[in-house]
């Protein structure tokens, strides 16, 4: 069973607009009318759970939810066939706003709320429930930001517990949460470099920096390091070598790449979970991510399109 943990889930509110009216620039136009909008459960682990479920992979989504928005998250996941196991908290789950302007969909405007403050009692309640779930876990995916009140050491603790229970651990996070998670030697990490292109104090801005940092992290015990180099390219580093994965896609053709990175990682986990080779997993993951980015829907799981797209993905072992 695959368990996803999203400590700070959200409802993603996406607006498609013809032109975003910026009052600061136009001086007179304040109102932007959305052509259409979409509301769906979000957060890195939640997105992965939905993608996996659409592929028919049984999985359980865990984390903290609260208030009216929390109910939307849980309901959406259940409608997608995901098993939910969230701890209810006092605060309100966050809403993240994404604005996609016609012709500029590849540079979305994203506003993420910090999320509700989580108390130590709520964390303790989660840990008990998480420990129980580990009895059934083969993979544990720890994904996304940590909400206020949750110790930065959370992913290290959860990863250590999962490894002890015999599960493979994947961490998709940023900064301190990821750096500390590395101490538990996870199986896969995918740094979130949307804000800071740094992993564990190693800069990962250029290709050579990514490879150098990846090799150091692998030497310290992590199995696979996957880093997005360009929007349409990734680099994977393991003890066996370094792979460069590239999709021949134009970012200007992206319609909505919110969640595409999560689809990419979930695709890789799905294939490795099936016992496929790493190269095939990377190819599938990249194809799934690209198809998602090229679709208006936040998460596209059209398996025919993904498999067709796989033929265009190039993978070179460096």
């Amino acid at each position: 069973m695959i368990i996803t943990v999203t400590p700070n889930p959200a409802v993603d509110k996406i607006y498609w607009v013809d032109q975003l009216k910026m009052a600061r620039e136009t001086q007179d136009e304040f109102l932007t009318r959305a052509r259409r909008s979409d509301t769906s459960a979000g957060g890195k682990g939640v997105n992965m759970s939905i993608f996996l479920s659409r592929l028919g992979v049984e999985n359980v989504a865990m984390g903290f939810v609260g208030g009216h928005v929390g109910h939307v998250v849980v309901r959406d996941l259940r409608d997608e066939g995901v098993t939910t196991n969230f701890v209810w908290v006092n605060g309100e789950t966050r809403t993240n706003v994404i604005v996609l302007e016609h012709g500029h969909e590849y540079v979305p405007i994203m506003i993420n709320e910090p999320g509700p403050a989580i108390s130590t009692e709520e964390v303790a309640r989660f840990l008990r429930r998480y420990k129980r779930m580990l009895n059934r876990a083969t993979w544990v995916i720890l994904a996304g930001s940590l909400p206020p009140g949750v110790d930065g050491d959370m992913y290290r603790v959860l990863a250590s517990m999962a490894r002890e229970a015999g599960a493979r651990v994947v961490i998709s996070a940023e900064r301190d949460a990821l750096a500390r998670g590395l101490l538990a030697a996870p199986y896969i990490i995918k740094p979130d470099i949307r804000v800071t292109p740094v992993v564990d104090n190693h800069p990962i801005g250029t290709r050579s920096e990514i490879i150098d940092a990846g090799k150091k992290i692998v030497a310290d015990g992590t199995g696979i390091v996957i880093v997005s180099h360009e929007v349409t390219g990734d680099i994977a580093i393991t003890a066996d070598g370094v792979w460069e994965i590239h999709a021949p896609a134009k970012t200007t053709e992206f319609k909505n790449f919110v969640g595409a990175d999560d689809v990419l990682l979930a695709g890789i986990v799905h294939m490795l979970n099936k016992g496929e080779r790493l190269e095939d997993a990377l190819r599938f993951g990249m194809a799934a991510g690209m198809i998602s980015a090229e679709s208006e829907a936040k998460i596209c799981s059209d398996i025919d399109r993904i498999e067709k797209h796989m033929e265009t993905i190039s993978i070179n072992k460096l």
Partner: protein
Amino acid sequence: MKVRDIMTKDLTSCEKDVSIRELIFILDSAGVPNMPIVDEEDKVIGFISEKDIIRACLPGYFDMLHTASFIPDMNQISKKLEQISNDPVSKYMQKDMVVVSEDDDDLQAAEIIIRKNIKNLPVVDKYGRLVGQVKRIDLLRHLV
């Protein structure tokens, strides 16, 4: 149709040492009327509902009466609830609860829900671990 095809796949539950106060918070937040109680391996060992908590706050002879008019006001119940709020749920949970397997037929689940007049029925896997619940609304949604 099997139970697995109609159940709500939610694992919201609590351990036997969780306090009544905490249970009320979870029931209220999750918007559910009852809760399976599980052990360290997620095996269902009990069941507690809002009704069980209310019953624990009423005098023992309440069931024999036809009216609640002898209770002067809600303060009595409020005081009793305050007294038991730190008690573990294990003290008030139903231990002889009924569960169904995810492989059982939907009709079997429907019969139990109707006969026992319950809103939710815990669903377990072959190891007795919680995998979801069948709600009355699940049955209705399925039938519609």
